[in-house]
Structures are given as structure tokens and as C-alpha cells.
């Protein structure tokens, strides 16, 4: 057993050899978590997922119980317990994985721990009832790597998440951590670094997909006494949490990449702007920063090359628009996070008026492997103009809710049906929403389109940060559009006219439509306003705000028309446009009557009941409670 504590000799490493020696020292201890059974040498690791998802579902209690149990059985020195970052399957948390035998437990509860320890860790027999259900096929246990959720994935930016202890820099180093920084600093010129990033073809993963290398080159070419590297971790798309997972699971990757970027553009200071709603991520990142400084990987004269770099953390305060780069900079400068006109672009005049590059967390996480393995290593993956991989946060009506990383160019169908496991309850796919409030809804008939930046744009959606919400026949597309627009209206900064007033006006029209007051001409007006807001807004938020509406009108126009002309919501979502009615199957059991919060149901025992529509608030409780399918949407 190697104790992973700081070894004074390694602190403030001054050359790449020290780093490599440290890596080699810890390499084996990590290898056993990546399928290298030979490296295990009898060692056992139990990985407890400590991502926000598992945190919310109670992983701390699991961890406590696990440690107690191991102690009781005298195993605390023999079996190593590691808290890792996210594995992606957040809906099934708390998660536990054992190594080297790679048993993946789902929905673990404190009461399951004793059994797992005694039966599995001591007895060698996995507790099948808690094993990840997809990993049991026809009663036989398969490696979780072979399950659909994992086997189509290709992890680059998430490569360390769920494997290393994010609070332990040695584990990052053992996974070739900081080798890329060492390589850049000691063997490459800044221009060579930029050229390599350019050659990899990597595009910004947070929004419009601007070429990262080109952005760096602009900042490099701008002369200034001071430059900044800024990491955008203000992940605000509802449902998207890849940046958080990376910060929680592999914070050093971001630090290393930012330092590389600093070297490339000649900046000595970085800022990470992270959502305040991500306390675990902030905490782990702070720990990582301290470790990096302790090891001399941040600070002055890094690797003895004379290069100085350090990073500050700034917390967001709840404004989606701060994900827009100029708004983010304005926020760091201490103002209302309102975007400013470009040009000047941040690479020329950014933070505090100095040349600044901004990339998001996921983009940065891809940088170290590119530097280490060369540009082709990334560019051979993906499509011609969208290289590498992309992380998606799968959500909505899908079996496997969670975080997945797939090569660019993977089809939506593969992601939804294979990785995502399809829709529960055998319902039919209706659409996928990508790109959050900036993106659009893609109908099921376009599911075979390979996902990349340009394809998504061409069908009226966008990559955005990578949220992917799957919708089935029960989802009303007008309501979905209204939901996303409501988000944008709420988050509009209020600076420019089209976004401030235009989105509000679109919202009012949508509300009218969903509440039964739609009029002929509304759709045309929505389209006109939508196109207008796209064309004339000040920043990306406004320019993309109409996408959810325009795309749903494009692909689901009939649904809007039904709402407007027939005043009907076929999915039974828009409350004003449907009624609950009790049919002939009612036997008068009174369950619905008793459950109704507004006393809207009348009827005597054993006689058919009746809903008084004027009292009904359409909460649906009666519908859910009825055991006889006697209440339906009419």
C-alpha cells in the first residue's frame, strides 16, 4: 500500500524528470483502476462517486458506512477507498465501483454496505441485486465497460473523472498529469503550442464553436504588458453539467491547460469564473490550486523555465448571461454582467482592457492530451470540421440519465437509443433538444444526422454546452418552447432592445397560445420576431434565444396550429387546452374524490363520479390515483 501523502522531496519540482519520477512512482496504484489486473498485485480499491449527483443522493453516508465497515473487519489498510468524480450515471447514484474486478454498484444505500463488504470484498462474490442492472445480461455478469452506456463512449475530457481522486495531485500526475505543461514549457515555443492546438482543429465547446487555436493566436499577436487566461465555468444551461463534472473529477486538467494557454499567449494570470451553485467543484478546484502551487506547478519559474502563472477563482452569482464571454469579463471586473459590443474582441481587448482568451472547462480539459499526443490524436476523431469528442448531459425521457462523452459525428440515434438506452415505458421518441435555451428541438426523423457543430446549426439547433434533452410523445413542443423562452426572458440582461423587449413579446404570444388565446397570425409574428431578434441582438444570448421557438415551429408547426386553431394540446400538457374527464370505467371507489386538492370531483360511492371543470386545476392527481383507467384527457 502506498500512502499518497505529500513527499517533501517532490514539492516545488524544478524539472520534468522529477515530474516523471513522481508519475512512475504512482503509476501502478492507478493502473489497477483501468483494467490492469496485473498491476493490482492483490490490492483492492473501492471507488465511491463523489460528484454532485451522488452527493445529493447521499454518497457521504455510504462513504462513512463503508469506512466503518472496513474498519470493523480490519480491512481499512488493505482496501483503499477513493472518492472520485462523476461516472456519468447520476440517476443511479450513489455509485460504487470495485477494482480490479470492476463491479459497478448502483443505487447503493447505507444498509447495502455491510453485505457488499462481507459478501463481495471479503467473500469475493458480487452482490448481484445491487450491481448496475445493465451489467447483468441473462443473469450473467458482464463488465460495465461492455454495457451500452459505456461502450459507445470515448473519454477525453472526462478521462480521469471517476478514476482518480480529484483531491490528490499525485493521482493526476500518475495519469500523465502536467506532462503536457512540462513538454510545452521545456520543448516548445509558444507559437508551436498554438500551432498544435490549431492543427488539432479543436473548437470551443461552450457555445458557437470558435476555433480555439485561432483565438489563442489573436491573443498571442496582440502586444501587451499584461494578458489573461480565463476559464468559463459559468455553466448555466439547465440540465448541462459537464463542466462541473470535470472541475469536480479532474480539476488539475483545467489548471494544467490554463497554464499551457498562459504560456502560449504570454499571460501570467488566469481567472476561473465558476457558478457559485457548484460548491463541490469550487472546493475541489481550490484544493487543486493549492496543491499545484505547493508542487511548483503554478507560481513563479515553473519547471525552472522562468514562466510564471497563477490562477484566481471568481464565483458567479446567478446570471446565465455571464456564460457569454464579454458578460463574463464584465462580471469579473465587478459590474452587472452585461455583454459589451464586439469588436473589440477579448483576444485584443478583454479583461481589464487587456488581451484575454476565454475557453470553457471542457475545451481546456482537451488541451493537455493534445499537447502530449499531438494534434492528429484528436483530429482523427470526430468529423472534418468538428474534431475530437463532445460531452453531453443526457436528460429528459431517457433511461440512462447522465453524462456521456462520444466522438463528434456520432448520430443522435446512437446517443439516444444506445448510450441513453431509449425511452422508458416503450414510448416513442419525439424530439431531442440540444444546446439548452440557445439550441433547438430536433425531430425524431433527423435522429440519424451525425452530431457536430455545423450539422446542428444547419438544422436550427446548436451544440451549446451540450445539454441534450430527449422528449417523447407526452411532451408538448409548444410548452417546451415556452419553457426555454421563459428561461431566456428571465435571464436576458436587459441591455439591448430586441432581447429585452422582443423575447418578452414572444413569450406573451406563446403564453397566449398555450392558454387558449392563440390567434391566426401568431405563428407568423413569432417567426418574424424570432428572426429579428436573432439578427439584431447584441450578444449570443439574444442571437440564439429564438432557436427553441423557431425550430419547434419549423418541425412541429402542426402542434402550434392545433393549439391555436383547435385550442387543443394533444399531449395534455397545456392545462387550459385539455380537460380531465371520467369515463364509463368508473366504479365509484371515491379514491379520486378524496385525492382531489380542490374538491372538484363529485359522486356517490359505487356510482360514477364527475369532474366539475370550473373547480379543476388540472393537477392530474385523480388521473394518477385512479386504478381503473377511468380518468382520461379529453
Amino acid at each position, binding site marked *: 500500500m502506498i500512502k499518497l501523502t505529500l513527499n517533501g522531496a517532490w514539492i516545488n519540482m524544478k524539472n520534468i524528470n522529477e515530474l516523471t519520477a513522481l508519475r512512475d512512482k504512482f503509476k501502478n496504484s492507478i493502473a489497477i483502476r483501468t483494467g490492469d489486473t496485473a498491476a493490482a498485485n492483490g490490492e483492492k480499491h473501492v471507488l465511491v462517486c463523489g460528484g454532485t449527483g451522488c452527493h445529493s443522493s447521499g454518497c457521504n453516508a455510504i462513504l462513512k458506512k463503508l469506512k466503518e465497515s472496513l474498519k470493523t473487519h480490519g480491512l481499512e489498510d488493505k482496501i483503499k477507498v477513493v472518492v472520485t468524480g462523476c461516472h456519468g450515471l447520476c440517476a443511479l447514484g450513489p455509485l460504487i465501483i470495485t477494482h480490479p474486478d470492476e463491479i459497478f454498484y448502483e443505487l447503493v444505500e447505507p444498509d447495502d454496505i455491510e453485505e457488499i463488504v462481507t459478501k463481495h470484498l471479503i467473500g469475493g462474490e458480487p452482490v448481484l441485486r445491487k450491481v448496475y442492472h445493465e451489467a447483468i445480461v441473462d443473469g450473467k455478469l458482464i463488465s460495465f465497460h461492455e454495457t451500452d452506456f459505456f461502450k459507445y463512449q470515448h473519454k477525453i475530457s472526462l478521462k480521469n473523472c471517476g478514476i482518480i481522486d480529484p483531491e490528490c495531485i499525485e493521482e493526476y500526475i500518475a495519469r500523465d498529469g502536467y506532462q503536457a505543461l512540462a513538454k510545452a514549457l521545456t520543448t516548445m515555443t509558444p507559437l508551436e503550442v498554438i500551432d498544435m492546438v490549431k492543427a488539432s482543429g479543436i473548437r470551443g465547446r461552450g457555445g458557437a464553436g470558435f476555433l480555439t487555436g485561432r483565438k489563442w493566436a489573436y491573443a498571442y499577436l496582440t502586444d501587451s504588458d499584461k494578458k489573461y487566461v480565463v476559464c468559463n465555468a459559468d455553466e448555466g444551461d439547465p440540465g448541462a453539467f459537464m463542466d462541473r463534472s470535470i472541475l469536480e473529477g479532474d480539476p488539475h486538467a483545467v489548471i494544467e491547460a490554463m497554464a499551457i494557454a498562459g504560456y502560449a499567449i504570454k499571460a501570467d494570470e488566469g481567472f476561473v469564473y465558476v457558478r457559485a451553485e457548484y460548491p463541490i467543484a469550487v472546493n475541489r478546484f481550490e484544493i487543486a490550486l493549492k496543491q499545484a502551487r505547493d508542487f511548483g506547478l503554478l507560481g513563479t519559474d515553473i519547471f525552472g523555465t522562468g514562466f510564471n502563472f497563477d490562477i484566481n477563482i471568481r464565483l458567479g452569482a446567478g446570471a446565465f448571461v455571464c456564460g457569454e464571454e464579454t458578460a463574463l469579463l464584465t462580471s469579473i471586473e465587478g459590474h452587472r454582467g452585461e455583454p459589451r*459590443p464586439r469588436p473589440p474582441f477579448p483576444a485584443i481587448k478583454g479583461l481589464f482592457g487587456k488581451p484575454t482568451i476565454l475557453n470553457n472547462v471542457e475545451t481546456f480539459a482537451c488541451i493537455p492530451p493534445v499537447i502530449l499526443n499531438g494534434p492528429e490524436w484528436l483530429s482523427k476523431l470526430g468529423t472534418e470540421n468538428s474534431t475530437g469528442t463532445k460531452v453531453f448531459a443526457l436528460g429528459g425521457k431517457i433511461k440512462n440519465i447522465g453524462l456521456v462523452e462520444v466522438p463528434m459525428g456520432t448520430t443522435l440515434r446512437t446517443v439516444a437509443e444506445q448510450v441513453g438506452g431509449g425511452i422508458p415505458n416503450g414510448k416513442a421518441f419525439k424530439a431531442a433538444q440540444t444546446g439548452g435555451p440557445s439550441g433547438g428541438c430536433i425531430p425524431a426523423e433527423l435522429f440519424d444526422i451525425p452530431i457536430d457543430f455545423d450539422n446542428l446549426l444547419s438544422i436550427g439547433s446548436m451544440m451549446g454546452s451540450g445539454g441534450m434533452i430527449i422528449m417523447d410523445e407526452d411532451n408538448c413542443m409548444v410548452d417546451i418552447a415556452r419553457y426555454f423562452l421563459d428561461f431566456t426572458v428571465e435571464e436576458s*440582461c*436587459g441591455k439591448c*432592445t430586441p432581447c429585452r*423587449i422582443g423575447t418578452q*413579446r414572444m413569450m406573451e404570444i406563446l403564453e397566449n397560445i398555450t392558454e387558449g388565446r392563440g390567434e391566426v397570425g401568431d405563428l407568423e409574428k413569432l417567426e418574424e420576431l424570432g428572426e429579428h431578434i436573432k439578427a439584431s441582438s447584441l450578444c449570443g444570448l439574444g442571437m440564439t434565444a429564438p432557436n427553441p421557438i423557431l425550430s419547434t415551429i419549423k418541425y412541429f408547426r402542426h402542434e402550434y396550429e392545433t393549439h391555436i386553431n383547435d385550442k387543443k394540446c394533444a399531449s395534455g400538457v397545456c392545462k387550459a387546452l385539455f380537460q380531465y374527464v371520467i369515463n364509463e370505467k368508473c366504479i365509484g371507489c371515491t379514491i379520486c374524490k378524496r385525492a382531489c386538492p380542490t374538491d372538484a370531483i363529485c359522486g356517490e360511492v359505487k356510482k360514477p363520479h364527475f369532474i366539475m371543470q370550473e373547480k379543476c386545476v388540472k393537477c392530474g392527481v385523480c388521473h394518477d390515483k385512479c386504478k381503473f383507467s377511468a380518468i382520461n384527457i379529453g
Partner: protein
Amino acid sequence: MSKIKIKINNREYEVAPNLTILEACREAAIDIPTLCYMKEINAIGSCRICLVEVKNARSMPAACVQPISEGMEIFTNTPAVQKSRKANLELILSDHNKDCLSCIRNQTCELQKMSADLGVSDENRFKGKMNEFELEDNHSSIVRDNSKCIRCRRCIAACAELQEISVIGAINRGFDTSVGCAFEAGLKDVPCIACGQCIVACPVGALYEKDETEAVFKALADPDIHVAVCAAPSIRVTLGECFGGKPGEFVEGKLAAVLKRLGFDGVYDMDFTADLTVMEEAKELVERLTKNGKLSDGKLSDEKIPDEKISDGPLPLITSCSPGWVKYCEHYFPEFIANLSTCKSPQQMFGAIYKTHFAKKLGLDPKNIFFVSVIPCTAKKFEATREGQSAVGDGIRDVDAAITTRELARMIKKYGINFDKLPDEKFDSLIETGTGAGVIFGTSGGVMEASLRTAAYLLGGHLLGGSSADKIDFEEVRGDEGIKKASYQIGDKTINVAVASGTANAKKLLNSIKSGETNVDFVEIMACPGGCVNGGGQPVQPIRVRNFENLWERRAESLYKDDQNKEIRKSHESPLIKAVYEEFLGEPGSPIAHQILHTHYAPRGKDIKV
């Protein structure tokens, strides 16, 4: 700098390289409409009215902020551009109180003109929810009607960037964004200095002066009341703008004529009390210089300091004729209150001496006098209500109504007087037109220069390197710089002076005095950039004029020209001034002068009251 080639609407132009599209197009005789843009202080690209198309650009850039580049092809009037501009205008109109007919800015509203120019055919096309606001009219000088506000933020820029006061800002977010004070307090409950720069920045009727014309009309209609009026120096170079004149047009004769036709019983020129202020302030300066050991060698010639302590305040002496500045000092730099000249402003001196000395001469009971000033300034309205501004006592204010240039223009229009056809007339001879020194009070540096002319005399020619007492043109303190400094020799001593206009510059100067970096003896500060000619009560010029023309330079030039043409250019040489001291005040700084013409100040704090 070498020029670059661009194309505008398919025509080639060669223009300077550092222009924005807006500026380049203007050179090509194309006026692109703008709302939010204010040169240098509000380049925020937010209203999206000035959109143009640029070949190969991803979206339509805002002409006000987009720089031109070599080979750029700009299209200012494509159907897409017209449609976008109009749609944004219609969106603005959808959250704007469109009671245009009863709006104070009816016919001078930029939004109204733009609606006509861009051909808005249905102002209710995007009708929907509107933000609701209450009218705020409890401030001494400024009325805010946020229902008219279009969120262009020009007032915020005027307050925060131009004046660096920042009592108003953008609050809330999204559709609910509005312009307001912290905690939505009223202007009267925040440290607002009432300068009115927000008003002259406002394109619509969301900000305007507290109207006092009704009270004036009422007094005029009352046969038992003697209604006197005096017009401040700068009015003669701005009033014409309200009647189609060019900025700076000199209309002193028409001004006197129109005031007489409005029915005032006495029509006077405030230049007189500007001269009076010079007398008192120059004296105060000499006293403070002496008391502070600056003139200990006693090289004063024919003047001697009276034994009774009149002014033992510290140096530098700072002028106090700008009430916005005085209020600023009381809120933000209370440590300089002792430095303020105790002299009342010319407006207040006029009311004070009119209701005392001249009332006696005219055989009037001050109670029956309604004294009106026409001023370029909204803070003067506040000043008139200040405590310590009553020479007569008994709650009789020195000044009963202070009306701005704009209010006077409205009165003229209401009376149906054809301004253009008016003959040139003179102010009433009881109080003759003042000196050139009085005239230049209307511009930044003018008070300093006027005072120096008299101080030079008082100091018996020892000023100015000992040359002579005759120096008249103090070029050093003229011009459009925000802070001007000069030094003058008095015997073996150097007297340092400084002039600042705009509170942003005042702040800079005061801080540098505080830090010891600047060592000065006499300072002139005016709250508005450029002084009274650019006051918050002056005619509101639309932004397409303001952005491209230095209004206050035009207006100031006109004042200096008048000064140049005046026979008497030094206050102390005015026969009227001499007579007033002889008949009534004794000498400058006398106890009676102090009682009538001086006042006091107190710190106001910066706290917000909710």
C-alpha cells in the same frame, strides 16, 4: 494618418482609419439614426437602432461602435436594415408611454422624430405588457417619468461617466430593467446634485425640469405683485436654439425684448450681480490670501484689510456660484466646505439686493415682489429653496422662481410671441447691463477670469509678474480642458489658480489638492462640463447634434466675443457697481454686504434615505 478606402452603399469613400461606421457615414452625408450612443461616454451598442449591413459579416453590427476597416462594404439602407431598425423602434414603443400630445418633449422628442423618419405605421404592433412606474416629482429640480424611459441609459452615462456621481443606474434585469436609484429611492433621497445633465441627455420625456412657469404666469397675472426677472449671462447665447437658431447665436437684444413682452415689471441682466459677486469674491480672495500669509509682505497698494474679521477661511478659496457644485461639495467633499466662498451666487445676490436696496429705491414692499431668474441650471431651482438665502428675512426668499432656458422658451411659445421677428431691445436701465466680466460668468473659466481682473486691480498691479493692473485677457484659464491651471506672480509670491468644470474633473482636482499634489490658492469649479453654457437647464439638442458638435464651445465663444465688445470689461469699473457700494453696501466685504450677499453651507452626507 493615411486614409483607408471603404464603400458605403456601393459608393467608394476615402476616410480616416480610426472612425466608426457611424462617423464614416456622416462624412459621406448619411445620418444613421442613433438612440443610446453618446460619444465617449455611452458607446454601449444597446438600442440596436443604428444597425447596418456589412458584407460578409455574421450579423448586423451597430454603426455607433463598429470600427471601419480597409475595404469594408457598408449598406445603410437595405430592406433588412430598414426592417430591423423599425422593428427595434416598434419594440421600444411597445414599452413606452405614448401620451405624446401631452408630453413635455412633444415635438422635441427623439423617439417621436425617429418614428416619423423611419415610417412607423403602427405604434402598437408589438403591444404587450408594459413596465409600470409612478411619476416622481418631489425633487426640487428634476422630474422623472419612467413610463417614458426607453432604457437608452444616456442619463446614466451623464450621471456616472460624465459627472462621476452615479446616483442613477440600471437596476433589475431583463424586461424589468429600469433606470433608478439604489433601493428605488427618489432623487431627493439620494446624493443627487440636481445638475440636470441627465435631462439634457434624455432623448424622451422621461427626465425634465420641475416646471415653475405656472407660478410665474400666476404672478404676472396679479396686478398687486411686482414681478421682476433677471436673465443669467449664458441665456443670451442659448435661448435662440429653442427657436431654430444655431448653437451660440447671440440673442441678448431679443431676450430683453421678449421678457418685456411677457409682462415683467422689471427686466434685468444678471451680469450685474455677476459683477457684484466678483467684487465680493475678489475681496474675499485678497483677505484669505493675506490671512493665510500669502501676502504678508503687505504689498497691497490702495486697499487695506479691515480689522474686523470678515473672511478667515482657508485657501484655496473655491467659487460658489454653481449650486450644483456647492451641493456636490456638501455631499461628497465636506472637508472643502470651509474653502467655499461665502458669496451667494449671482442669482441669489440679485434677488437679495433687489428686494432690499432696489425695493427701497422703487418704493416697493419686498413682500409684494415676485423675483424670477432665468437660468441655465436646474440646481438653481434647488438653490433658491436653500436655507440661508433670504436677505429680507421673514421667510421671503431672495428668488421666488428659477426658470430654465427651456421653461422660458415654453412661456414664449405659450404667449405666441414670434421670437424671430422681435427687435433687439435693452434691459431696464434701472440696473444697467453689466460688464464683460459679468458676461463670461456663463462659461468655465469665466468666473476665475472676471475675479482675476478685479483681484489684479485690488492687488495694485503686483499681479502678473508685476506688469500692470490692466491685464484683461487671462487666456490661461479659457478653453475646453476639464482642468486648467495657471500661476501668477505677486511681488515675490506666486498665486496658483485652477479651474475645473464637470464634477468628474472637480473630483480629480479636489483629490489632487487633498493629496498635496496640487497646490492652489484660488479655484473655480462649475458642476457642468464647460460651465453654465452647457448647464442642465439649457436647450436639449438632439443627440445627432450633440455627438458631432461641441455645443458649449460654440456658446462660450459667443460670450467671449460679447466680452471683447464691451466697453467696460472689469467689474470694479462698472458705474452701477460703484454706485451700489456708495449708496448701500459701503465696501466689498462690509458687514452689510455680508448680511445681504453672503451665505453658509453644511455637510449633507451620502446616505440614502428610504
